[in-house]
């Protein structure tokens, strides 16, 4: 085992000063944004060492988000699968219903300390948009959320939720009218309004320093889970499982365990109709490196370097790229990236709901579905921690319409 190259890596060495994770990451944006990114980098560096900033972040995490989120031993589900003991990291119990708020609180505080009065965000399913609109409401900031026109139609509930929170939702009609186009449009807004606007990116992608700072804000998931697992199970977990779209919940869980090289990690991408069909959103499993949205990373692209359409039943995973740190972790074999198809995720959604009374988000259901395969291959004294990154209430319409039911 000691020949495995990832065991000798210094994980604290990434990203480097230019935001590179190996060959990935970096800062691929037009010149106008460089100064703003330099400023963000400097203010993040300063504030992340500032006790007042950290105290405010910690206070918000405790009293506004409701952290620490529980690590729940899923006893009936463990029995059902007949293998490793399964613990669920309950990010679904956070305020606004997912892990996204850990990051939006962090970035909104950065915006506040930087004196910005307006925040913008991109959103796919609407979870990051809702989490951004929530913190903007609380801090009294103007908030505009860019959302692909297709997603606006598919996610009417979250669109209305954002409006109730006082945000303006701007439908994006360019390109494929989904998350990647919303991100393009948010970048266009930012380049135009760079003086007074803070762009709250929702995942560990984008130009440096976003992948780093989003990772740092989300790492609270893994820090808590590590301590909770040691306390509750008396041991470090043998395996971690998390879904990967852009990859913020997965990095949040994985990062504090990277040095624990006996902890095996699984990042679960959206296999859509099946990776072999080409209709999926699994760039780490079936894509190749390229440059999009400010960073070099694995992408879904055609032979001419055009970004191709993705498919997943889960809007939150329906993205052709992935955070650059995941690309690096794949190449050094630290994390195993696998894919779960739509139908497997849906079956897992139903099963967990019925066995544990916990309705997972369709995104998280991909991690649940992979655990169905993994747990039975492991011993009963082994431990799996699965990141239940969000709750499934937002997906009831999707599941119902698959069942042919109009709600």
């Amino acid at each position, binding site marked *: 085992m000691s020949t495995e190259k990832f065991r000798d890596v210094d994980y604290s060495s990434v990203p480097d000063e*230019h935001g590179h994770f190996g060959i990935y990451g*970096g*800062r*691929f*944006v*037009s*010149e*106008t*944004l*460089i*100064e*703003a990114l330099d400023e963000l980098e400097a203010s993040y560096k300063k504030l992340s060492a500032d006790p007042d900033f950290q105290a405010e972040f910690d206070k918000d995490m405790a009293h506004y988000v409701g952290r620490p989120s529980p690590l729940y031993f899923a006893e009936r589900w463990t029995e059902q699968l007949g293998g490793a003991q399964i613990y669920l990291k309950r990010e679904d119990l956070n305020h606004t219903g997912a892990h996204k708020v850990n990051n939006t609180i962090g970035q909104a505080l950065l915006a506040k300390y930087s004196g910005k009065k307006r925040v913008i965000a991109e959103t796919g399913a609407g979870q990051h948009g809702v989490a951004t609109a929530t913190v903007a409401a609380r801090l009294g900031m103007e908030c505009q959320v860019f959302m692909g026109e297709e997603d606006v139609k598919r996610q009417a509930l979250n669109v209305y939720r954002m409006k109730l929170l006082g945000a303006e939702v701007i439908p994006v009609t*360019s*390109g494929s009218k989904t998350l*990647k*186009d919303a991100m*393009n449009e948010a*970048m*266009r807004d930012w*380049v*135009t*309004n*760079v*003086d007074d606007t803070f762009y709250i990116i929702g995942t560990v992608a984008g130009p440096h320093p976003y992948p780093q700072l989003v990772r740092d804000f989300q790492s609270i998931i893994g820090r808590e889970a590590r301590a909770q697992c040691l306390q509750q199970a008396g041991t470090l977990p043998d395996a971690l499982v998390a879904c990967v779209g852009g990859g913020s919940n997965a990095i949040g869980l994985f990062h504090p365990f990277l040095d624990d090289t006996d902890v095996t990690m699984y990042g679960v991408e959206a296999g859509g109709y099946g990776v072999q069909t080409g209709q999926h959103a699994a760039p780490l499993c079936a894509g190749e*490196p*390229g*440059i*999009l*949205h*400010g960073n*070099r990373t694995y*992408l879904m*692209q055609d*032979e*001419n*370097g*055009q*970004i*191709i359409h993705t498919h997943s039943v889960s809007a939150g995973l329906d993205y052709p790229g992935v955070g650059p740190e995941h690309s690096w972790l794949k190449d050094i074999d630290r994390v195993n990236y696998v894919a779960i198809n739509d139908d497997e995720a849906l079956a897992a959604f139903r099963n967990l709901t019925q066995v544990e009374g916990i309705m997972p988000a369709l995104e998280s259901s991909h991690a649940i579905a992979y655990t169905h395969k993994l747990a039975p291959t492991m011993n009963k004294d082994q431990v799996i921690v699965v990141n239940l990154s969000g709750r499934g209430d937002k997906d009831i319409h999707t599941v119902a319409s698959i069942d042919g039911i109009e709600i």
Partner: protein
Amino acid sequence: MSRIAACLDKLHSKGQKALIPYIVAGDPNPEFTVPMMHTLVEQGADIIELGIPFSDPMAEGPVIQLAHERALEHNVCLSAALDMVNEFRQQDQDTPVVLMGYANPVEKMGYENFASRAAAAGVDGLLTVDMPPEEAELLNEALKAVAIDSIFLIAPTTTAQRIKSIASLATGYIYYVSLKGVTGAGHLDTQSVKDKLAEIKSITDLPITVGFGIKDAESAATISKLAEGVVVGSALVQKAADLSQKGSNDVAGQAAQLIGQMRLAMNEAAA
């Protein structure tokens, strides 16, 4: 001497400024592009910037986004754009052609492969919008090896220190983005352009062209007094798109009249 340097030297000796139209390769269809390039030269274009269609043109306003989408409907990609330059070169050996686009198509083709194909096709420069100098080292080497100019952007937000480092890597000319925003934005501020150009010129002797927000003969003439060249993109692309939609039987000729008008106004301003 590169075609770009020769062109700018010649204009300089005549006391004139470069007029640089931008069109997207394959917009509205692949057959349109090469004849349009010739027509632009006839109307007074000195250098042509040819946009490489990309699925996610992050720096573009709505007009040029749509142009990229129209070109992609015909599957016009980097490879096809290189073929167009090659075809253009059959009749025109003098007018510099600069490819302007996004990093990923070039990345996918491979830097050295791209450089040798572009050189063979007769490309003179490359401007990769989303590849700032910090990330461009390897691409720059590949371009240098085949004597293709690396055109870099400078923005209103670029600090003096960065201007210095950009100027040390750039060849051909520097493209000054006249405003904070996307292509085709409408808030060009001549005084702020003038101030920033003075700052840039105090740091580098490279020729400077100005783009974003130049939409008619008047704005072209005004900016031409401040810089070595003006770039016009959205106004031209929009005009061609409108004519095309109306079913004009001479889209190229009528759209390129905008360039003719700009040429006249710029010559008058220089006189």
